[in-house]
């Protein structure tokens, strides 16, 4: 059971949050210009990394804010949290 440091509320139990999958997948600005394959890439394709992963979380039973998390999926350690719109920390690339 993770302890997640919501950037707006502080450390809270995982049960207050819901996971929103991989982060930094930007919705294409001009979907109509895309081929089926390119659209499918945006729509369906997600990484499944063993190691450092950037992911979205929602404090759904709290402030309802979405934010980003850097998590090492091999040991579940959360290495960093940052707000939507902020640049991902570079040291975890």
């Amino acid at each position, binding site marked *: *059971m*993770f*302890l997640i440091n919501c950037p707006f509320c502080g450390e809270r139990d995982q049960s207050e949050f*819901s996971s*929103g999958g991989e982060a930094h997948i*930007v*919705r*294409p600005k*001009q*979907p*109509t210009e*895309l081929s*089926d394959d390119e*659209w*499918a890439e945006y*729509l369906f394709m997600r990484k499944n990394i063993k190691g450092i992963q950037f992911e*979205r979380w*929602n404090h*759904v039973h709290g402030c*309802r*804010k*979405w934010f980003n998390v850097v998590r090492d999926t091999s*040991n*579940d350690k959360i290495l960093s949290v940052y707000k*939507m*719109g902020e640049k991902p920390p570079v040291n975890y690339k």
Partner: protein
Amino acid sequence: MPNYRIHKTEYIDETKRVSFKYDGKTYFGYEGDTLASALLANGIHLVGRSFKYHRPRGIISCGAEEPNAICQIGSKKDLTEPNVRATELELYEGLEASSQNCWPNVKFDIGGINNFISPLIPAGFYYKTFMWPKSFWKKVYEPLIRLSAGLGKSPTEPDPDIYDHKYVHYDVLVIGGGVSGIIAAKMAAKNNLKTLLVDDKKILGGSTIYQNNESIKIDDKLSSEWLKNEIQEIKKLSNLTIKTRTSIAAYHGYNFLLAKENLTDHLPEEKKKNKIRQRLWKIRAKKVVIATGSIERPLVFNNNDRPGILLSNSINKYLDYYGVTCGENIILFTNNDSAYETSISLHKKGIKNIIVDLRKSASSELIKQAESLGIKIYFNHVVTNTFGYRKINSLEIMKLSEDGNTTVGNKIRLSCDCLGMSGGWTPMVHMHTQSGGKLDFRDEDQVFLPKENSDDQISVGSCNGDFDLENIIDKTVNKINKFLDIDNQDYQETNIICSKENDKRNIWLLPNKIPLGKTKCFIDFQNDSTAKDIKLALKEGFRSIEHVKRYTTTGMATDQGKLSNMHALGIIADTAGVKMGTLGTTTFRPPFTPLTFGTLVGRNVGKFFEVVRKTSMHEWHVENNAEFENVGQWKRPWYYAKNGENMHDAVQRESKAARDSAGILDASTLGKIDIQGTDASEFLNRVYTNAWSKLAIGKCRYGLMLNEDGMVYDDGVTTRISENHYLMTTTTGGAANVLSKLEDYLQTEWPELDVYLTSVTDHYSTASICGPNSKKILNKLFPNLDLSDENFPHMSFKEDKLENINCRIMRISFTGELSYEINIESKYGNSLWKMCIEAGNEFNLTPYGTETMHLLRAEKGFIIVGQDTDGTMTPSDLQMDWIVSKKKYDFIGKRSLYRSDTIREDRKQLVGLLTDDPKEILEEGAQIVSDIKSKPIDMLGHVTSSYFSPNLNKSIALAVVRSGKTMKGQKLIIPMENKNINVTVSDTIFLDKENKRLNA
């Protein structure tokens, strides 16, 4: 009656005699006993039958590892509990326990025949035998297996006990209150760290608390006396909480642990009443010290499972802690020093005993002490067989060969009434591995040890492989100082005399002259798996320890192989000729010992099981005989059974009334989202398929919301209240998800939009009045409101007051009738409803429920998201292309509407179905085909909604059918169990295609 209680101890209160029943017979014990110690005091070893062979089995241990002494407690239908370990259950007045897995009784058990046919039931017996003939499975094998499966009986009525949950936070959690745990807790607490110490036993002290050997001393005192002092000391520490009778069940990530505290299981029936039985502690600790100790290993030899064969250290505890001897003529069989402690204790109490030691020789102080007391020791000998059916009465020993692989010389037969085994110690690494820790293997004494890899978790004491007191104390102190970054000097001067040495002669499967196939060398006592089974599994090609485990069921019983897993691994390694450490272990899964369901669910039972949401009008519905339907968490009136009607009659009456005169529906549960901000219109443009910019203030519009994959997600009517203010309605079940999805887009994709979303579902109550007379009823309620079609047309919105309370009135329709929805602040909901009912009285205003609502909308071909759709339906599939804007550049899901798959013409599409026999009502979910002759039958789709329409006087249905759009007029077949129903594909709109009724 025999009495094996031979001396007084401070842990047994002989002034408090306790009577209890075992297998229907009354016995006596004392306060402080466990059920096991009380049974042993009465000379009872035989407590159960083994699972597969029904062999007589006795108490083997004194703790959580017990595989045999598991009992059924109590006989009441609601309070009986199976699989309770007698070794852990504290005795109380009136306790009723019985043995399990035997019939007619434990002494004479019919299933014992399995023992004699055991060559016929080897490992994997089930997999091999029940494969053929195929037809036997359902009628013969399955009933047979079900009959013999399982141990004990489940309660058949709800559990009346109270359970509790509690969340706590600590700086340091110490698991285990033996020597190392007590030292760790003291060091942490004295350093101002808020500390919790938990132990599963009634008192702290582990196995040292009853230690009374003169040659094992701390600071010149008996180790038990020294420890008692320490316990007195820590009880004074203000920031140390001590929880006994509390065991850690699970160790999750981020130092989140679950502990079960037993509060009343040791109390007599009348004192249990109205008290919390067990409490689940949800613990967050910054640091965790694991001091869970170790358990003694049995030895694997022929017939090592007879009643009267125990672990050597357990014999010691029964003697020195409970004052009970397990026999009068005891043999101790060991491969290490610790059995000598037992031997000396027994000797001191005048119990005759001899030692059989696998080692060629040994020379620690402890052994010298035993020798000087004249205790007979057979070095370099092995037990090869035991005798006695219901209890051991003698055994055979032989000399070991030089390499330990075979036996040599003559058999020596020794009589005894009890045998103690000591195969050395297994560190309890469960907590460490549950937390994600890895293990190292130590070759010299063949143990798995925690590999330190974490800053917030550490193992100390014998669970870390430190078995003698000197090591335990020194290492614990050093490690805790480092782990907590403190400098505690309390134990610098502690002087420890241990007298034991660690050498050990480990042989996993002891040699025997008898071929293995003819022996019964048990590894897993509860699941009856033997060394032979393990070898057979390897012979048959199994290699992975996880596979061998499942094939032989070793370690899969309620004790989870606490005594057996290491031996299974050892024998696999020896047989396969590999080093044991390279095989890994099976996974140590939580819980450590079984938890009751009550503990897990806590207070969330009965009406607290789930949140129930009720509308303001709920009481009125109850008073008017509403049957309720659960929609998400909401309770919605399903139908109102008037004068004892059944559902069908009620729905027919309600549906007819709504179209003939007027009906009223509680629509409060529909999701309502208040949308405000200068970009609200643009936002709606992006989330709905149709256009919103031109919606005039005071007008309403129906919207369809898609997922990004183009599939219909939700629908509802949205009203423009003012320039930058909308009220969106969603489906009842979808409200929370829609809000969450909209927030997601707003916060992550379109943060530039000035839009604010607020859920107002609970803020407003809604009464929806429909039918040709609805306007007249509205006029009575709102006499000042101009209800003319010019002023207040379909799909528009007005505000007016009802006795000074603001109402929002929408003229929108989900039934196809002239219809108004009145919204009012929730606290006035019930009054609004009652006023509507009163005003409608003269027009036969009929309250209707969700079933009638579904029927009425189906007559009009309106979809219900989630009933006629299932997450694979596009707007086009629903024949709703009219609502998808061609002009808008983008909206959620737009691009997916022309993927190669979504433009396929043979997708399943929504159609209407009319049965050839208009009285025949289709079953929702029924499959639809066109040809039943060619096999396999081609499934074209299924029925999604089906009703008998009283207004059309015929059965109508909606269905999704492959290429359905092109099939109008075509005949199809619905094959049912007893008949085939013929249907014709129709339009989805069955009633009033011209929408005349909206303006009736």
